[in-house]
């Protein structure tokens, strides 16, 4: 029994270290963002919001933040347009399913640097209707969709699988055209899965910077790309502020989804 208790304490100590390990990069960024110092160093000599003020007045950082948001919304939108019908088909089809699902998951296992250079080489010189793909937000969103789509499908297929198959049939028997049946009957029931899938796609795109590094120009640069490029040149707490803003946007998106989930559950009761 004594031995049991000793292992219990050891396990607790380990868990404490693990939690510390997860929280250190987050906490350190949040604290440093409010430092009043001119350089990043510990101990912090005073706190102020001046680096935030500087961040929000810097046209280049703000432009990068907007680019990130545009690309992330576009990625979420494209992933959903593709993933909704595909997941519905995968959930209802049986024959080719394992092969197709494996094929769709593949891009997740290809390193970002490889996807980035492949897309840049193959599609970088293409123009559609006189519009150059290279450096466009659309191309970055396409590259991000390669990772966002498998994640969305992984969330959506189980969601559609658990739906009652007779729902669609009943809607059809009552005379609803397929599209209407899907939007009015299936979508509301599967909304939790759909929101989670969209959230995954959005976050994946917001955080990604290796593919974006190869596909953006100075004008379309995203926030994490700009962070990466200024990593070595900037020693001021400015970079902590930018990193804080990026992480805060992700947590805000997750928080909003969580609030929506809570509200919609209460609405049902």
């Amino acid at each position: 029994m004594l031995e049991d208790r000793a292992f219990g304490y050891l396990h607790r100590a380990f868990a404490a270290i693990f939690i510390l390990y997860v929280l250190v990069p987050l906490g350190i960024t949040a604290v440093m963002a409010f430092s009043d110092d001119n350089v990043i160093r510990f101990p912090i000599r005073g706190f102020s919001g001046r680096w935030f003020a500087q961040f929000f007045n810097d046209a280049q950082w703000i432009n990068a933040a907007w680019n990130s948001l545009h690309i992330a919304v576009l990625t979420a939108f494209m992933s959903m347009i593709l993933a909704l019908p595909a997941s519905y088909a995968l959930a209802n089809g049986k024959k080719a399913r394992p092969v197709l699902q494996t094929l769709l998951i593949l891009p997740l296992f290809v390193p970002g640097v490889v996807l980035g250079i492949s897309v840049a080489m193959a599609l970088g010189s293409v123009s559609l209707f006189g519009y150059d793909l290279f450096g466009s937000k659309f191309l970055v969103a396409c590259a991000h969709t390669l990772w966002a789509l498998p994640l969305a499908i992984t969330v959506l297929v189980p969601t559609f699988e658990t739906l009652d198959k007779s729902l669609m049939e009943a809607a059809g028997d009552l005379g609803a055209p397929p599209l209407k049946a899907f939007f009015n009957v299936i979508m509301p029931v599967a909304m939790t899965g759909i929101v989670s899938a969209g959230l995954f796609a959005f976050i994946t795109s917001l955080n990604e910077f290796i593919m974006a590094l190869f596909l953006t120009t100075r004008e379309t640069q995203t926030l994490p790309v700009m962070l990466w490029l200024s990593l070595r040149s900037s020693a001021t707490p400015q970079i902590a502020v930018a990193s804080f803003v990026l992480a805060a946007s992700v947590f805000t998106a997750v928080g909003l989804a969580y609030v929506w989930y809570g509200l919609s559950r209460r609405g049902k009761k």
Partner: protein
Amino acid sequence: MTVEADIVPSRSKVSAALPSIPWLMLPTLVFIVFAFGWPLLYLLRMSFNIHPAQGIYVEAWSLQNYLVVMTEPNMLAMIGRTIYISLVTATVTVVAAFFFAQFVWLREGRNKVMLLAIAIAPMLISEVSVIIGWRMFFPSNGLLSYALISTGLSDQKVNLLGTQIAAIVGLSYISISYCFFSILSVLNGIDRNLLTASGDLGASPLRTFFTVLLPLSKGGIAAAFTQAFVFTMGIYATTNALGPDSLWTMPYEIQLQMLTRRNWPMAAAISVVLIAIIAATALVAQWLRHRKASSHA
């Protein structure tokens, strides 16, 4: 791109609302071919081209690039280093993820939800933010050094930035959530009473761990290890920004050839080799799992 327009009611009136399956897959398949298949084929083709002294590439069917990657000592050392750092990272990550997953598995209620939220956090943070966070922790004017001095554990500043330890800490942060959830899902399938039974029958905690828990969770551990290894093989930003300059890995060389040297064929050839190593790892892992599954049956 309105996808639902492709839904053609083709069968009897009863199944009018059931869309025909292949049409629904079509947009996704077109997208995958356009944005994934075609670029990868292009990459493969590019790897056989030649890089001239002036310019980017000349079309050719040459094995020159592969010969360089597979025979030059520098390149071989680089491939070895990439595999080495990925193996070390995967091992550290899986061990840490396992003990934390086991810890969470044994808890209940509100505490468990908190612990799960902590475990999911690394998945939500951008790699670049992870790098920036650890770059404020490891250098001589960072938090670690300050903490060591103010607690009296060290009497001079400590710098760990640019060491393998910093690189491994950063790299493992990136795949730890995925490993954690792979292992937790396997643990959730194990009956906790087995551990109690083993203890009641007189086995020590260590013995229970090695003869009961570990064998039962082998599958999840293997999956987590493969995942961490594959992820780490493709990362260069963290390795480069936290590790020593000598830790020169394949993804780093790819971006260097692509952006700095403008040698597209070489960047492509290294990429193909990298994908081949990742694919081989995944296939071996798959094969091991199947063999184990069939031997149990």
